[in-house]
């Protein structure tokens, strides 16, 4: 054998390397680590993480500038109220992360050479999907974790560690984790269906943010509860911290006419999120399994 320079090489062409059977679980771990290694170096992850940190830090900085007394007054002297308001936009961060990390997680195999690298390995597609889903969930949680960390820091600064409802904050983070899984399930489903990674990201963003928000508003205008909406269910993240939670408000808009404003209860939110995971994740696995590399 020779190298490109024409020099003789003593390296054996054939290697008798022992190979052992690898379980699905081991391959799942291999794919997850591989995918995480990719995500951690992407601009989209670093950008989103940085953006979440900067926005949270600026929010906290303005509050510190306003002073402890002002913030306590604004938040009705309740740490839970403060946390609930601070985390009001967590759903938006999750939707953004789901679109960026899940919107092209599968379509990349059918539009770039990535599929010709990974899909010819002896790994089940369901295992590939599960590994990528786990990795996308972890990086999404990392982004969410930043906002929760700033919220917790602010809570301690303005109200003291003893007054921060740590148990409910943890519950809220758990709900945020489930919301992330639900949003990623939708994103993976879109990604398994479309062929273009950019289209996957865009469709996920439009569906989860613009689509649901618009439909939710229309349905509420008609006086119905938007129980089908994932973004509606996302309200449970703040609801669990809200001590004065109201499920439905009837706002009078004329004689015997009311506009109903709905907010998902925690249980309702959890049910909707779980339903999204249960429906969209298996469906994305089915689509991914069936998809052919025709490009």
């Amino acid at each position, binding site marked *: 054998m020779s190298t490109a320079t024409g020099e003789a090489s003593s390296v054996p062409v054939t290697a008798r*390397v022992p190979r052992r059977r690898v379980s699905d679980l081991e391959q799942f771990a*291999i794919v997850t680590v591989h995918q995480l290694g990719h995500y951690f170096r992407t601009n989209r992850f670093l950008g989103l993480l940085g953006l979440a940190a900067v926005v949270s830090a600026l929010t906290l900085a303005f509050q510190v500038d306003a002073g402890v007394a002002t913030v306590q007054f604004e938040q009705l002297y309740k740490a839970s109220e403060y946390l609930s308001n601070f985390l009001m936009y967590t759903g938006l961060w999750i939707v953004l992360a789901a679109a960026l990390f899940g919107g092209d997680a599968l379509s990349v195999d059918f539009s770039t050479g*990535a599929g010709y690298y990974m899909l010819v390995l002896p790994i089940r597609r369901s295992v590939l999907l599960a590994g990528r889903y786990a990795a996308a969930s972890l990086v999404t949680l990392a982004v969410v974790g930043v906002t929760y960390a700033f919220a917790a820091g602010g809570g301690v600064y303005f109200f003291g560690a003893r007054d921060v409802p740590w148990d409910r904050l943890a519950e809220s983070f758990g709900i945020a984790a489930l919301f992330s899984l639900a949003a990623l399930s939708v994103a993976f489903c879109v990604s398994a269906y479309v062929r273009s990674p950019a289209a996957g990201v865009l469709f996920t963003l439009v569906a989860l943010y613009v689509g649901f928000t618009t439909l939710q508003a229309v349905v509420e205008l008609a006086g119905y509860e938007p129980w089908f909406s994932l973004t509606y269910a996302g309200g449970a993240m703040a609801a669990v911290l809200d001590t004065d939670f109201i499920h439905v408000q009837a706002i009078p808009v004329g004689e015997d006419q009311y506009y109903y404003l709905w907010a998902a209860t925690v249980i309702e939110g959890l049910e909707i999120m779980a339903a999204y995971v249960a429906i969209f994740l298996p469906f994305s696995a089915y689509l991914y399994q069936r998809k052919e590399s025709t490009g």
Partner: protein
Amino acid sequence: MSMGSFAVRDLSKSFRTGPPALSNLTFEFEGAGAVGYLGPNGAGKTTTLKLLVGLLRPSRGHAYLNGVDPQVSRRRALWDVGALIETPEPYPTLNVYEALDVVGRSRGLTRESVDREVDRCHELLDLPPLGYRIGWLSKGQLQRVAIASTLMGDPTVLLLDEPTSGLDPAERVLVRRLLKALKRDHLILMSSHQMLEVTEVCDQLIFLHHGRMLLQDRVEGVAERIRPRAVDVEFARPVSADPMTVLRGVASLVEVLSDRRWRIRFDGSEETRVRLLSLCQGLGPVAQFANSSLILEEAYLDLISATAPES
């Protein structure tokens, strides 16, 4: 090392639009050696390879890798197979080592074995530094990494779709030598447009045309059927004679490449070839008289015209 095999039986593939990409294709190989898979663009070469590894589902028939249909179990079918299809691209954010590591680990190598295999591939294929990101690599470097990925864990069957695509001449030589060494105890299916390259590496050839098998034979058998219809003549000294006057009635066309080199096209018969040599020697000392480098398209057209009456 166990013996590898691949087979397709009555394999057909149609897409939503257009004519069938493959029609009733059947072939089977077992043991060690290299099979060249030739045909022009759109002949169905890559489609066959994709069907073999389960990237496409057959419209009819079956494909088998080491006796396992990838439609039944892709994981078992691909366990002892290295496949290079189209242009594989690991994530650009990963480095060369990480890109090869995921392949080795998923094929059941331990971390230590992965390291040894990466070193072996690095040496065999003159890979770029292992810390280089995939996104930084040139096309040739990326192709060598992709070839290395097929070798990780030393699978018995190698399916290679134009493996020298994007490589410079030195890299092509490197890969050809590697494949010639590998075929001693591996079974290789290699698709290519490069007739000369395939005949250098492979023992058997399959010609494909419009999704149908045109010919399957040993390389020598194919060479017999495809008669080169052009020779390149190099004279020892410059020649001033008008070639068409000298070779009238024997050559169909003469291209004057320089004052010492001609490319002579003729009917391909041995008798004419001998006459041409004799006539050229009459003009002066002949330094070289050899078949013109045969491009696939010419050979392919010859083959079509040769087999058309039979079909």
